[in-house]
């Protein structure tokens, strides 16, 4: 199987690529950013997904499967860039996948799609609406990209589309949304709130993504699936297992304290996500693919802490 990974230079992209190579797949990578020490068997194309050169890769390399990881979060880019990369890029990937008869396309989205609110259900199933657009408007572009990808299920019926909504991933790379949040010695918590956080080991996430790509290509699996690892833990416990100290601040202090005293710089709206849980029910994905995580909650956090 030839698999094209967009956003291959990202942490998760590299893990998926290495794993795919280990499983004997032919891996083609596409990313603007370099991956200097990429394994020799991985074919890298340093092109922008939204530019013409990306089509050449699809046309000449003819992948069987595409894993679309080239999305960014509000933490790294401004709004214009986010819409161009997340929505524009996703649209391009699906158009090219259809045009060049790719068998399957896996969109890797985030569980924050569901948003956090006091009156939201604790375990979100794939049927739940994207509350994030209301609770955290900076996630709107990612929500739009997710919904656009999911629409390929009816728009391009021959393409086996899988949308994955993956919980926070963490591990020795120390990269990702949760890792950035836990970066400093002290981690802010909203006084009186201790929501459940769901994190999975980055290697398990890579396994899940590749499992989805294989199930789509070989068995014709399609659909939208939540992906998670071990059971969620209260944020205070996540902070403890990460070897950090929780700093409990009253809610009104947050806009002022963000980015000061070594605390992470967060968007004001992200406060809801550290007050209330975003937890997904991943039973449909496990049942459809047989996926099982290998790192439990303590091992996952230790791999981050002691890396």
């Amino acid at each position, binding site marked *: 199987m030839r698999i094209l990974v967009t956003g291959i230079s990202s942490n998760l992209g590299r893990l998926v690529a290495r794993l795919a190579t280990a499983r004997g797949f032919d891996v083609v990578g596409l990313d603007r950013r370099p991956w200097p020490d990429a394994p020799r068997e991985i074919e890298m194309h340093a092109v922008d997904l939204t530019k013409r050169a990306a089509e050449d890769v699809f046309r000449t390399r003819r992948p069987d499967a595409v894993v679309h990881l080239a999305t960014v979060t509000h933490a790294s880019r401004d709004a214009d860039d986010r819409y161009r990369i997340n929505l524009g890029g996703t649209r391009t990937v699906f158009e090219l996948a259809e045009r060049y008869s790719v068998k399957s396309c896996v969109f890797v989205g985030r569980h924050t799609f569901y948003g956090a609110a006091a009156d939201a259900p604790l*375990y979100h199933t794939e049927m739940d609406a994207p509350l994030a657009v209301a609770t955290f408007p900076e996630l709107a572009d990612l929500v739009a990209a997710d919904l656009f990808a999911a629409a390929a299920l009816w728009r391009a019926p021959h393409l086996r589309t899988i949308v994955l909504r993956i919980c926070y991933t963490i591990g020795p790379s120390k990269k990702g949304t949760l890792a950035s949040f836990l970066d400093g010695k002290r981690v802010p918590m909203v006084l009186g709130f201790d929501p459940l956080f769901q994190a999975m080991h980055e290697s398990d996430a890579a396994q899940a993504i590749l499992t989805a790509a294989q199930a789509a290509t070989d068995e014709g699996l399609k659909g939208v699936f939540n992906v998670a690892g071990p059971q969620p833990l209260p944020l205070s416990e996540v902070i403890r297992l990460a070897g950090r100290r929780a700093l409990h601040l009253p809610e009104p202090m947050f806009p002022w304290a963000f980015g000061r005293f070594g605390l992470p710089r967060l968007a004001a709206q992200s406060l809801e996500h550290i007050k209330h*849980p975003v937890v997904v029910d991943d039973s449909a994905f496990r049942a459809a693919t047989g996926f099982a995580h290998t790192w439990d909650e303590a091992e996952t956090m230790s791999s981050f802490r002691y890396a």
Partner: protein
Amino acid sequence: MSLFVDDDVHARVRRLEVPFNAAGYDRYGTSRKHLEVFFSFVAPLYRRYFRVEATGLEHIPARGRAMIIGNHSGGYAIDGLLTVASCFFELEPPRLAQGMAEKFLSAMPVSSTLTARLGHLTGLPEHAERLLNDDRLLMVFPEGARGTAKLYKERWSLVRFGSGFIRLALATKTPIVPMAFVGGGDVMPTVANLYKLGRLMGVPYIPVSAYGLPLPLPRPCAVHYGAPMTFHGTGREDDDTVEKMVVEVRDRVAALLADGRRRHEQRVRPLFFLGGGG
């Protein structure tokens, strides 16, 4: 073990058939440590302060899904707390009854964390269904906040029961254990509810007790469980069919409550400063 944890409570928490992970949390965020501290604090209240008498405990299944359906009374949910305590202290092995917390509790600091750590999820149908499908023991007060808002003189009455619990019981094939909580109105004799002030504070209302303080009195309480009721259906029945089942459960709760009232009135005298009331 912590200084605040009673030995007996510690042993009972260990015997709860709740799947805690190595760190002592279940998949809903219920915490073994929090339960130990909470029940250690509740034990003297349950046994000595409120001298709770529990009957009909044999009607609660030892394991598997079940729904306790009871009446509310007494300003705030002291009845819920003592019902949970009765399942924990009296059942062998102990069971964790999980309530459905009012939505405002999840939105407020501290209460949001405490309700979650003690196993009481926000009152959403999705949560109730998930817990039942997980074979938990659910505690539901179908009168809702209207029930806790009963004044002292209304303490023996029942207000309208919502019908969601019946649809849920049908859909998840869950037996209903009717329950009457007796004495809630005595421990917190409410003479008025301040709705406007409550809204300002983000709660449904502020109960005002006959003596001005929001503290419960050391009066005896009782919790009476009745034989389980099983209904058959899908949960998608028309309103009339469901309403008949709701009335059937409500009648059983009313009968248990009337019975409990007789026993209660033999056991305790009415509050001298309020008279007998309704």
